[in-house]
């Protein structure tokens, strides 16, 4: 039995379909990320669960209760808004205590629980500050504390880290993980940052144009993208269009630009396909071992790694190599490339529309 | 979804009624066929609108108000725009004080302004003259123009002017070809707002007119303090329609919500 069950959730604004037939089950204690490009309907989905937007159709069940029948204020969910939405006229303690006050929790207990929550988010020393006298990361923690203190059955986070600078974002990412572990609350995180989604979640749910495309553990989604869109969205990828010639028990073969290549075991019907290959799976080898050779057209240094663009008979390939402090091929040099057939991922051709 | 409840709707309805009621009764009364004030009117008659034409006093006053509005708004714009440019971008000693001075007609009680102008103008024996009216109105309406132009100047990207200078434009050319077109909505909006303010001004004007320069609000005011008849209602109706017309113009030129609410209007 899943804890949160979203069935065929749909939201249309006039003609615009913001969320279409969205179904997702989340287990108790699980951390799931809703990932997708801007405008794909992540916030709309979250706001429907929170009760600030009425779904056009579909159902939402949380712990056996039909959410649609409960007004936003009675749903008891913890929500962290993208802008944090801290009450500027209240201190940190008053902000965090607000939800308990609404629940008419006695003063003494309220005080104790606020202290606990502030402890959890490491803010015990700033109890009496006003939010505007705090840094972005600290506000973020207050917002989390305020959402968690009411012991919500479900925690909803809408791009909670997007307003922070890169370094703080990494730090808060670890904090979020720790807090999730300690509080153990079922969490739904909205983000368009794939690193964030993969680093934090038990499962990622990738959305595209209002639809859910794939739900998997970060590793499975990265390794086994169900579409070229997901493959391109989760990390970098080379996408090659070709013709699948045959599939056998032990592998497959396809053709691109007159070259025949070995591929992994596939169950697709022979014909046009797309093949994805991660840049970090391509090795530089000696000429006699190469599957294909090409000329480096561009080289970018990223600190911990090098990125190459190589012109090959297959088309332009992106290659990623860890920086080992050695000399690397320069633009204009010829390099020889190889990869294992199982690192190719054969996908159906995207229908544009 | 945020939605107002029943209480909010009722409150809002009553409030809207409160806001429009005085205007509606004025317009309603103006159409009465009777010789006294009645609302709702017992019939629909243009009798009292025709009566306006038989009262050259009012027509003359309306012309004076129009001329006064146009001339003083133009004069005030000519003064306020350079001042707004100076205040809006300079960081010089006295900037705050200068701005406070130019905005002070908004905070000094209007009766005080009225008697001050009266005292000053009568010393030079120009009280009641059109020139005196224009100068005093220019002072009263300058803050309205200044505020709108300041808002436009604040929203101006200064690198545009620098770009023009780097391309060899002279001061005057930069102003005419780059700065002015960009702040023009603020200038025009300010002019219209200033015109309306001048056209409606009573408290100061009542001290500094003479019988030959009496403006429409002053004539209307002295008429109302003696008697309220349907004639003042029909004249007021014309004033309301004229103002609404100007509001439409303002809306087209500058955006009424932006004018009234500032830049943050959604």
């Amino acid at each position, binding site marked *: 039995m899943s804890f949160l069950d979203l069935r065929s959730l749909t939201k249309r604004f006039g003609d615009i379909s913001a969320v279409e037939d969205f179904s997702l089950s989340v287990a108790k204690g699980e951390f799931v990320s809703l990932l997708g490009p801007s405008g794909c309907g992540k916030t709309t989905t979250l706001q429907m669960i929170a009760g600030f937007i009425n779904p056009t159709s579909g159902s939402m069940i949380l712990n056996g209760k039909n959410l649609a029948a409960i007004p936003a204020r009675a749903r008891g969910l913890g*929500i962290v808004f993208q802008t944090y939405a801290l009450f500027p006229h209240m201190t940190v303690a008053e902000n965090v205590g607000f939800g308990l006050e609404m629940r008419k929790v006695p003063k003494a207990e309220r005080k104790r629980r606020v202290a606990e929550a502030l402890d959890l988010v490491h803010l015990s020393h700033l109890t009496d500050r006003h939010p505007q006298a705090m840094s972005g990361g600290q506000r973020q923690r207050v917002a989390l504390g305020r959402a968690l203190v009411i012991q919500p059955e479900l925690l909803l986070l809408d791009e909670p880290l997007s307003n922070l600078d890169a370094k703080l974002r990494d730090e808060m990412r670890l904090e979020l993980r720790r807090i999730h572990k300690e509080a153990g609350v079922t969490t739904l995180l909205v983000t368009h940052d794939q690193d964030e989604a993969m680093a934090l979640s038990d499962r990622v749910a990738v959305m595209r144009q209002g639809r859910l495309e794939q739900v998997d553990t970060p590793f499975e989604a990265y390794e086994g993208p169900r579409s070229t869109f997901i493959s391109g969205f989760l990390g970098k990828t080379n996408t090659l269009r070709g013709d699948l010639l045959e599939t056998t028990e032990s592998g497959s073969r396809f053709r691109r630009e007159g070259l025949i290549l070995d591929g992994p075991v596939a169950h697709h019907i022979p014909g046009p396909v797309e093949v994805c290959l991660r840049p970090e799976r391509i090795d530089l080898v000696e000429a006699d071992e190469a599957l294909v050779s090409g000329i480096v057209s561009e080289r970018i240094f990223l600190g911990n790694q090098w990125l190459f663009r190589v012109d090959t008979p297959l088309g332009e390939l992106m290659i990623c190599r860890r920086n080992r402090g050695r000399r690397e091929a320069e633009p204009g040099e010829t390099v020889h490339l190889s990869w294992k057939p199982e690192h190719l991922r054969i996908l159906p051709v995207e229908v544009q529309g | 979804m945020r939605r107002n409840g029943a209480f909010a709707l009722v409150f809002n309805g009553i409030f809207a009624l409160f806001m429009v009621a005085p205007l509606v009764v004025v317009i309603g009364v103006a159409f009465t066929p009777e010789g006294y004030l009645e609302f709702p009117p017992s019939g629909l008659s243009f009798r009292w609108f025709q009566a306006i034409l038989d009262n050259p006093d009012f027509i003359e006053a309306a012309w004076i108000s129009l001329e006064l509005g146009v001339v003083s708004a133009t004069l005030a714009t000519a003064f306020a725009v350079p001042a707004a*440019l100076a205040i809006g*971008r300079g960081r010089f000693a006295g900037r705050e004080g*200068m701005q406070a001075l130019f905005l002070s007609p908004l905070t000094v009680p209007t*009766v005080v302004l009225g008697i001050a102008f009266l005292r000053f103008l009568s010393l030079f024996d120009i009280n009641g003259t059109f020139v005196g009216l224009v100068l005093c109105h220019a*002072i009263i309406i300058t803050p309205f123009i200044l505020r709108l132009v300041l808002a436009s100047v604040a929203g101006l990207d200064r690198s545009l002017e620098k770009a023009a200078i780097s391309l060899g434009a002279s001061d005057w050319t930069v102003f005419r070809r780059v700065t002015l077109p960009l702040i023009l909505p603020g200038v025009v909006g300010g002019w219209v707002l200033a015109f309306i303010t001048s056209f409606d001004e009573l408290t100061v004007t009542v001290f500094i007119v003479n019988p030959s320069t009496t403006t429409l609000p002053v004539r209307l005011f002295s008429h109302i303090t003696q008697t309220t008849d349907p004639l003042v209602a029909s004249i007021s109706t014309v004033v309301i329609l004229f*103002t609404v017309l100007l509001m439409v113009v303002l809306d087209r030129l500058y955006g009424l919500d932006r004018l009234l609410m500032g830049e943050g209007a959604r």
Partner: protein
Amino acid sequence: MSVFSSSAARPWLLSGPALALFASLLVTPIVMTVLLSFREFSFYGGISDTLGLSNYIEILGDGYFYEIFLRTFLIALGTTVLCVLLGVPEAYFIHRMGPLWRSMMLLVVLGPLLISVVVRTLGWAILLGNKGVINDLLTRMELIERPLKMMYTSGGIVLALTHVMIPFMILAVWASLQRQDPDSERAAESLGAGPVTVFLRVVLPQCVPGILSGSLIVFSLSASAFATPAILGGRRVKVVSTTVYDEFLNTLNWPLGAAIAVLLLVSIMTIMVAWTRLVERRHGEALQ
């Protein structure tokens, strides 16, 4: 050299004409008025050349003037309170409306700001008169037997002034509402607050700066309003500005009128400064 390079003289050149106008036609006349208020006046000799405090002594020694000042400030206070009570909820409700309704209501609420005060007050005179629309309506509904007296009362003036001033309050509160994070209301709701609690605990406190600045504007404009009390109060309910008017244009005792006006100016300025101080001390650090 350009208009915008930092030549020290440039801003003064640009604002020179306006400065000249304001110095000669605003500052000088006001100073002269203050001086005028210290001159003596007699009906035979006119305005004397000697300076003295006689006008102020006359005003401060006469209960009649106390009454007028007290009435003026009570009317201003009443108007301010009504504007807060009506304007704050209205601004919030408009804030919550859909875009179409919102722009319509803003037009209804703020449009009158541009319409002549004389015309608006005429409307109130027609509404409030003994044979006015309201009395007529109430009599016909048989709720009252004799007409309610609303013309020539302070109450009538407060009502009409509220109509004239409330757009300023709504504008000020609106500005506060615009600065608020719309998610803060949602946050309160998600934590279990009902609509009334959201308004009282989350929205209203964030509006306080707007309410305070709106109150200041409404109070000072009401205390110096002329057209509305002159038309609705007539000779019977006099306020400071109408008294000044009478002294200047009927009694022709200019020095006394000037002294009354100076007292009005000084008291309004004092109230404004004190109020601003108070607000800054109270809310300076808590809200930006």
